[in-house]
């Protein structure tokens, strides 16, 4: 690893994760909104369980697509932290891998408090 910066492969993966998360969630949000408005479904409220959201999204339901898009968007920074933890660990940069794991634990606490 270059002592003056991070590995180019790792930064490229982080770039891909962040951009991919935004593009995928943006696509799902757009599709969900269009289906909701075109089919004149009632606009969704509340927060159903993850299993319900996935089932609805797989069925092409506008509400499900919308909620899956939001969850993917919210999970994108979490995935980025996970990729960095793994990447730094594999590159032998254990110190920052542990720091990233600490951030991941905090995000897990938030996830458990919110969705648990």
């Amino acid at each position: 690893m270059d002592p003056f910066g991070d590995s180019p492969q790792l930064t490229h993966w982080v770039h891909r994760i962040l951009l991919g998360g935004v593009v995928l969630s943006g696509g799902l949000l757009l599709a969900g909104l269009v289906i909701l408005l075109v089919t004149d479904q009632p606009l969704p409220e509340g927060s159903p369980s993850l299993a319900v959201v996935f089932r609805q999204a797989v069925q092409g339901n506008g509400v499900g697509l919308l909620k899956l898009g939001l969850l993917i968007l919210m999970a994108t920074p979490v995935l980025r932290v996970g990729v960095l933890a793994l990447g730094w660990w594999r590159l032998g940069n254990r110190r920052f891998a542990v720091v990233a794991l600490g951030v991941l634990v905090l995000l897990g606490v938030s996830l458990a408090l919110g969705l648990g």
Partner: protein
Amino acid sequence: MTFTPLGLLMGCLAGVATGVLGAILGTGGGVFLVPVLVIGLHVPMHYAVATSIVTVIATSSAVASANVERGTANMRLGMTLEITTALGAIAGGLTAAWISARTLEGIFSAMLVPIAVLMWRGKASEDPDQLPVTLQELREESANQVAEPLGALGACYLDPAVEATIAYRVHRLWAGMCFSFLAGNVSGLLGVGGGIFKVPALHLVCRVPIKAAAATSNFMIGVTAAASAFLYYGRGEVHPALTAAVTLGVLLGSILGARLNRRVNDGAVRKLFAALLLVVAAQMFFRALAGG
């Protein structure tokens, strides 16, 4: 709470305006979006904060993906500061559940005043006394030293403006962590990105060059917002259709704003926006006082 297609369109337009302003002024836009949703579209305060937090994740992820590739975002520094910023955001997100909408509006209006003043005064500039060294100088310096010249958190990036690779060390990390906690707390409580605190702290206290400070702050904001977004989502305060419409609007506005950026007078927009923020702050303050 229900929204008609017209309401969603208005939310999307508010998002576009937020994205355009954010791209021109270099802010996250939450300071503009929350008042527009609350005062303009009559969205309850907690829902407006939750919507803003989700849009912050979208813009932060989009901008950070480019900054990481360019090398301006310092991922090791950002990750270290994310420990305290996430803690602050969780504390803010939990606290928001116990605070009434009117009290939250009062706190938000109080926060807008210093932001408006900072906005009026303009961007922080590079302090010539704190200019970092070029990478070449640093490599020559490091050839004579055993220790890592940048420390564990230092980094370097190519600055096209000066056609050189700029290298820097990070000073007073503990102070940066304290400011990050504060920024995370404000973000979780009020739905703003918190860059308004983090960028000056990283630049002036930790002595990180302004471009790297702004990019690193933006890199961190996604995690800060995600830490509290799950709490709002769990409480059912993330309205899917409204949040989707506003988020798509913000992303579209950010692209438009980036194109407009070169054609508009940044200083004039900044001062107009600062004055507008003061008016909005007064309006939200009186709503909070009236309690209805």
